[in-house]
């Protein structure tokens, strides 16, 4: 039968059903009347005759069911009937229903959110044609994504396995369209970028490889759709307009399609500009320096039929050629491939690890929730054993009863799933508009789509079956006769044995999961608190940071330090400002300039001979004062350390110890940077955090911006004044210096919140999961305890009647629940300590062996146990043996 007539037939059967039912009723009644007539004739009084006739007839409902079952419309009809019946049953115990739905909503919601993340960050490839052949190149043993421009050119021209090698680099420029100069972040890319990716313009055209004719030859720019929308208000006349980028004229040639937002998942660029114009973006002459190997990232499509392994062999042969040809600059030129969407191995493994761990935890929570609901349903089935037995006795089939139980489970799971899905959609929406960094256009690209809905639906159905299955055996085993005869005790007798049941295992598992979650969230919270109060090597309190880049306003050469000095002086003059200091890149702000340094004796300055790899800051004389960094030995930089004086540096403790053995030894000693003259150490400052919270202590050097100019300028303004008023004064002071200089002004603490994002995210996620785990553990233990108390009420009553003490009663009633709690907690604690080690990568100063954490977990679990067993314990203790024993 094809689908449509089949449905029509079933629908028709559905409507004819009531008609059929009355017909059957009439017929059965007529039969009984006829039989009663006969019986009456044989001498029975009429009422007795009718009673006998009814008994002889047998189960009328049962036969009607049988008839309905032989009808096609039966499936739908009984389904609706089942649903109506289940709804009635569920509504009769609203507490149980709400608890079950909420439990599931939490568990499924959490899973949907994590799945949304998984889908967005890992499962979904970049939104470009043929993303599966797209690979990014990494080199060296530490899988660095950076290459130098010259190396890129050689790789591009000498490899035989990539269709076309693309490069991109994130840059920040000053945009001036006539009014309101602003900063903007985008990519500088090779000319072949759009062609190689196969992207078509939304408006205008893209630039091509053919547009590149040497340095500064391609003043073109493509802007992204969101930027076109927000900054240019969808103005179609933008194509062909000239805008000032860092005071250089660039022509906007086109707008990228809305579906294309660059080649990193989480970083949406405002624009794309050709890398050959790098110098105009305040970048200096990097294009011609071969050992500037942190410069760009290279990726591309493999040629059809080429495997990643073949590509690596090919790249390595180019690498060998590079090492041989440029021994001074190129070392470790062995290559690996990675997916470009998460910047290869820079972010891929931690993000993947974090999401996978979350998925695992969320999955465990759902499993725990199912275990929980399964035991709740089993307990209910036990409570309802008399009802079930009666239904069986009255002729209902076991299948029908099982179907009712499953319908109930599915109704609960679908309701929970829907609720959870709505919650997760709201949360994912909030995540997708969240901007964790005040400076970078970083987003979490989650868009709750069909895949999330399907995942939630499947999870709901699967969990419904999972916990619906638990009471099945119990129902199949119900012996109607025994139950009706002996009361509910008859059914449960079989399951109160000493052996370990599936339920026990599930509960221990669940408690262990909960303990793991509690342990890890405590570790994370503790670590976060400690990192907030740890020594960063500077003091972000009572300081504001003004972030700008002088190249964006067209300053070059000697003008840069001169303008920086004017800015410092102007800010210094603001009343209430105690000190002002400039640094080229604030610590913990996403990047830190770094380079190799050599001992003074080294003559052959190749990477292999480097004495240390150090972070290299350019600062103004008063920076340490303004930043609150303590000078340990020697002197600070002064305004006299300029081009007319010997080159000097202040170094941190770690650098002093690493290069010269000790802090005292360092003063007055010399070392060599990669480029430029030897530097003399004049002072040593305390250690600090530079790149990220969780880094191992790194060496750092500080050079005067007068001796080594830098365009990037973050100026720290220390003052006890109210930040808002101070900000207004700073803005005025800066406008007086240059109206065209785009800048950002934030308190240092706000600026820093970015650095804490990973540990914050981890802490919040684990905290939420921990709370959910705790709720589930409480309901699980509560379920078990309540169930075991109600099953053993009679036994408790007898014991009390025979003089048992409260302690013994409690032991009898709750001993099992508490034993399971103990086993689970210990297992969970041990696992949690192991998990904490993983956490140490994400959360600064996460230490699972912390006595605070260990005590916290024990207290938390004990508290959970107390909460969960309180009500059942009260019930057990309030047993009145007299009443109880009289009842049955």
């Amino acid at each position, binding site marked *: 039968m094809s689908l449509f007539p089949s449905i029509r037939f079933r629908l028709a059967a559905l409507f004819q059903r009531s008609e059929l039912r009355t017909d059957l009723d009439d017929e059965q009644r007529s039969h009984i009347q006829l039989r009663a007539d006969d019986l009456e004739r044989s001498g029975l009084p009429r009422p007795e005759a009718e009673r006998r006739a009814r008994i*002889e007839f047998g189960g009328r409902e049962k036969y009607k069911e049988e*008839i309905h079952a032989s009808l096609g419309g039966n499936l739908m009809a009984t389904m609706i009937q089942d649903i109506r019946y289940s709804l009635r049953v569920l509504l009769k115990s609203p507490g149980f229903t709400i608890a079950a739905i909420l439990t599931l909503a939490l568990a499924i919601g959490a899973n949907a959110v994590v799945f949304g993340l998984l889908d967005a960050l890992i499962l979904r490839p970049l939104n470009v044609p043929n993303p599966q052949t797209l690979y990014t190149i990494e080199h060296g043993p530490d899988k660095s994504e950076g290459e130098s421009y010259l190396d890129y050119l050689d790789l591009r021209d000498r490899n035989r396995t990539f269709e076309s090698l693309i490069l991109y680099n994130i840059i920040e420029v000053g945009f001036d369209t006539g009014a309101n100069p602003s900063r903007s972040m985008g990519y500088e890319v090779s000319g072949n970028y759009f062609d190689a990716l196969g992207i078509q313009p939304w408006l205008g055209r893209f630039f091509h490889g053919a547009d590149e004719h040497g340095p500064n030859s391609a003043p073109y720019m493509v802007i992204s759709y969101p930027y076109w929308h927000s900054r240019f208000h969808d103005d179609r006349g933008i194509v062909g307009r000239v805008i000032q980028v860092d005071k250089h004229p660039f022509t906007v040639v086109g707008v990228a399609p809305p579906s294309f937002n660059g080649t990193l998942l989480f970083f949406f660029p405002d624009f794309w500009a050709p890398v050959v114009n790098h110098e105009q973006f305040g970048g200096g002459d990097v294009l011609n320096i071969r050992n500037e190997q942190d410069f760009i990232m290279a990726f591309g499509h493999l040629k059809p039929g080429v495997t990643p392994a073949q590509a690596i062999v090919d790249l390595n042969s180019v690498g060998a050629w590079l090492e041989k040809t440029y021994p001074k600059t190129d070392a470790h030129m062995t290559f690996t491939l990675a997916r470009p969407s998460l910047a290869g191995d820079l972010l891929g493994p931690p993000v993947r690890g974090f999401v996978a761990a979350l998925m695992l935890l969320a999955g465990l929570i759902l499993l725990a929730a199912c275990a929980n609901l399964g035991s709740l349903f089993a307990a209910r089935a036990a409570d309802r054993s008399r009802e079930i037995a009666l239904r069986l006795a009255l002729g209902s089939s076991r299948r029908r009863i099982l179907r009712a139980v499953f319908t109930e489970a599915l109704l609960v799971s679908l309701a929970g799933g829907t609720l959870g899905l709505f919650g997760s959609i709201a949360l994912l929406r909030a995540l997708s508009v969240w901007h964790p960094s005040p400076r970078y256009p970083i987003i979490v690209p989650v868009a709750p789509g069909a895949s999330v809905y399907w995942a939630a639906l499947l999870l709901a159905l699967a969990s419904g079956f999972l916990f619906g299955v638990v009471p099945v055996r119990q129902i199949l085993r119900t012996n109607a006769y025994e139950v009706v005869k002996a009361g509910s005790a008859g059914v449960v007798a079989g399951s109160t044995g000493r052996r370990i049941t599936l339920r026990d295992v599930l509960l221990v598992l669940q408690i262990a999961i909960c303990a793991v979650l509690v342990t890890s969230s405590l570790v994370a919270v503790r670590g976060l608190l400690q990192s907030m109060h740890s020594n960063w090597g500077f003091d972000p309190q009572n300081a504001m940071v003004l972030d700008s880049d002088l190249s964006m306003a067209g300053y070059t050469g000697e003008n840069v330090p001169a303008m920086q000095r004017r800015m410092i002086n102007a800010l210094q003059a603001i009343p209430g400002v105690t000190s002002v200091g400039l640094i080229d890149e604030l610590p913990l702000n996403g990047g830190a300039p770094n380079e190799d340094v050599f001992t003074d004796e080294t003559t052959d300055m190749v990477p292999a001979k480097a004495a240390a790899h150090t972070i290299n800051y350019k600062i103004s004389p008063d920076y340490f004062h303004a930043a609150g960094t303590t000078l340990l030995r020697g002197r600070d930089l002064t305004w006299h350390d300029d081009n007319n004086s010997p080159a000097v540096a202040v170094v941190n403790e770690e650098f002093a110890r690493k290069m010269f053995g000790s802090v005292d030894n360092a003063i007055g000693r010399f070392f060599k940077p990669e480029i430029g003259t030897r530097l003399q150490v004049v002072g040593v400052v305390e250690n600090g955090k530079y790149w990220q919270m969780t880094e191992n202590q790194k060496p750092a050097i500080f050079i005067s911006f007068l001796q080594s100019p830098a365009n990037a300028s973050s100026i720290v303004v220390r003052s006890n004044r109210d930040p808002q008023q101070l900000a207004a004064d700073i803005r005025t002071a800066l406008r007086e210096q240059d109206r065209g200089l785009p800048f950002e002004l934030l308190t240092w603490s706000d600026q820093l919140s970015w650095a804490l994002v990973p540990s914050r995210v981890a802490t919040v996620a684990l905290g939420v999961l921990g709370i959910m785990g705790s709720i589930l553990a409480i309901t699980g233990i509560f379920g078990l305890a309540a169930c075991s108390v109600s099953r053993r009420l009679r036994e408790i009553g007898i014991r009390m009647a025979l003089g048992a003490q409260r302690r013994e009663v409690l032991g009898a009633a709750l001993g099992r629940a508490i034993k399971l709690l103990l086993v689970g907690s210990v297992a969970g604690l041990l696992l949690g300590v192991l998990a904490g080690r993983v956490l140490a990568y994400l959360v600064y100063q996460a230490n699972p062996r912390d006595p605070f954490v260990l005590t916290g977990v024990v207290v938390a679990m004990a508290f959970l146990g107390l909460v969960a067993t309180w009500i059942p314990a009260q019930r057990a203790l309030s047993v009145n043996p007299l009443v109880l024993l009289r009842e049955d």
Partner: protein
Amino acid sequence: MNDQAQLLPGTLDLLILRAVSLGPLHGYGILLRIGQISGNALLIEQGALYPGLFRLVRQGLLKADWGTSDNNRRAKFYELTAAGRKRLREETKSWNRLAGAIASALGPQPEQV
């Protein structure tokens, strides 16, 4: 009661067809007729008749109509259709074959004597 035999599965339909083949009957009448022709040797729960009747009507072997009984009660009367008559003939034949085969299999065998 215990001297009554349980019905073999599938035989109820055959008995109904046979009972109705002698003329239209209502459900209760069919029961009485089966009792009469089988010498009250078969145990049939009264209600169990109706699913069987319903099944046969749906298969088009019987047709049913409301009418009035001898003692003026409204009742549903069943009657054989042509298909029902044909089915009864076939089933009777195959039943006899089966019964004969089983009877001879269970009867006294020479080597057992």
